């Protein structure tokens, strides 16, 4: 990998929750860097703090210690409007992240209005097209869409401000296995077409290995090691916990391997 400047960097990030005496450290001194155009994954079991990092980075939680930088500039605790245009997030549950009483067009028009972006109507049509939904989806309500279609709308909403960075919080774990493939293909294609940088959180190793080049294995609020997708595929882990985690996934697929072979 050629040494490029980091687009996103976390330096000594720590996040704690709770009142003074019962304060627990959820994220503990985490550092990582993501280069432009790279896809970085965070893996770990629930409660290890991976989504908390995403929320801190996206500006949803400003109560953190340490620094987060974007193109070498430290981000202020209160993010600027420009930041929200450049960094967008896709949430886990497409059933919860779309307003039930807004049609797709309105969902997509809102970020454009907020950021004062022109050509709203054309942009909506283009973005819907880019995520593989036809113009007929423009005037539908979320309840008229399937889970996979909703997640496409959620991705479209994130893309419409033409961001550089997408934060993906388990984007396929609420979906069926058969729909998962569609969304993963879409994410891969969009990244190449639009030169996006991804930070993706998942507990599914196969999904991370498919989308990301590098991933950090998290355990109890710390990144215990970083692996490339190649190392994940070949189960080359140094830490015992990572090895156990890899094993848990591989055993579940063992039968399939011999099946497809």
């Amino acid at each position, binding site marked *: 990998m050629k040494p490029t400047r980091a687009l996103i960097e976390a330096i000594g990030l720590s996040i704690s929750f709770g009142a003074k005496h019962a304060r627990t450290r959820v994220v503990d001194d985490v550092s990582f860097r993501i280069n432009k155009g790279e896809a970085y994954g965070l893996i770990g079991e629930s409660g290890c703090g991976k989504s908390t990092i995403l929320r801190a980075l996206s500006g949803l939680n400003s109560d953190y210690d340490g620094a987060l930088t974007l193109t070498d500039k430290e981000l202020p605790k209160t993010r600027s409007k420009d930041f929200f245009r450049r960094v967008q997030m896709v949430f886990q549950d497409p059933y919860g992240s779309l307003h039930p009483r807004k049609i797709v067009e309105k969902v997509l028009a809102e970020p454009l209005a907020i950021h004062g972006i022109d050509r709203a109507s054309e942009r909506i049509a283009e973005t819907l097209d880019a995520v593989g939904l036809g113009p007929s989806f423009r005037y539908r309500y979320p309840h008229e869409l399937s889970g996979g279609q909703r997640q496409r709308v959620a991705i479209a909403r994130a893309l419409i401000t033409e961001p550089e960075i997408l934060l993906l919080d388990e984007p396929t774990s609420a979906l*069926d296995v058969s*729909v998962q*493939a569609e969304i993963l293909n879409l994410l891969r294609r969009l990244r190449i077409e639009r030169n996006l940088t991804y930070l993706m959180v998942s507990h599914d190793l*196969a999904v991370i290995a*498919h989308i990301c080049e590098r991933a950090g294995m998290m355990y109890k609020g710390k990144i215990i090691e970083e692996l490339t*997708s190649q190392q994940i595929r070949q189960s080359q882990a140094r830490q015992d916990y990572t090895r156990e985690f890899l094993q848990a996934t591989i055993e*579940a697929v*063992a039968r*399939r391997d011999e099946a*497809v072979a």
Partner: protein
Amino acid sequence: MDKPLIDVKDLRIRFHGAQRSHDAVRGVSFTIGREKVGIVGESGSGKSLTGRSLLKLTPKGAEISATHMRFKDIDLLSASEREMRKIRGNHISMILQDPKYSLNPLMRIGNQIVEAYRLHHKARPGEAKAKALAMLEAVQIRDPDRVFKLFPHEVSGGMGQRIMIAMMLIPEPDLIIADEPTSALDVTVRRQVLTILDELVTRRGTGLMFISHDLNLVASFCDRVLVMYAGRIMEDLPASELHNARHPYTQSLLESLPRLDVAVENLTVPVRDPSWLDGPVYRNGELA
């Protein structure tokens, strides 16, 4: 082979709408013996409805019809609500997806398990409590005495699901219907819960109907797999024979999963062919 526990032939479940009615399950036939049978399909394929219909727990508007639907020698179709109450829990029990919603939040865990036992067996409270503690230990809960006194919100998701398993196994049913029992759980916890379920089911010779959308998981866990699509069973085959799956839908489901061992550029997206709705189905690699 001895007599199957469940014998269903040509099961149909229909919902009546104001204008038109909708068939959610269309002519499903299967048998379940003392084995682990997995039912796989995407949402809306009718897999959960099929499971629930065995206990007659389908929503009010659903109309169930079948040539026959038997549990051992009991005809489930004509069974009254009173007879069904005897079957539920006692002979057939059900593990639901999310322990957060399926445990009583106002009752201590131990008392819920004791209740499940005493509802079906004549036992004194002390005896039932001892049994419940033993059961908690069987699902590998450390310190069962402490957990016995906890409320559901005080335990983790994995522990909650193990408690559900304990509660469902304590009346010693003949058949367990598990409806996506692990999809709310983590990968690491999932394996633990499945191992426990597998061990208990195998040791007691209980039949298991395992409903899931994860073909992968079912393939490694069950003895036999039924693949459902749009209310029909597309393929019925032993899990070890999955690589010989004949139906294009089963094949595409297998190919759509991202794989750890091989990197691929693009995943195969399962195509859905309208002709499958009434097309051929396969049993054990043969046309049925």
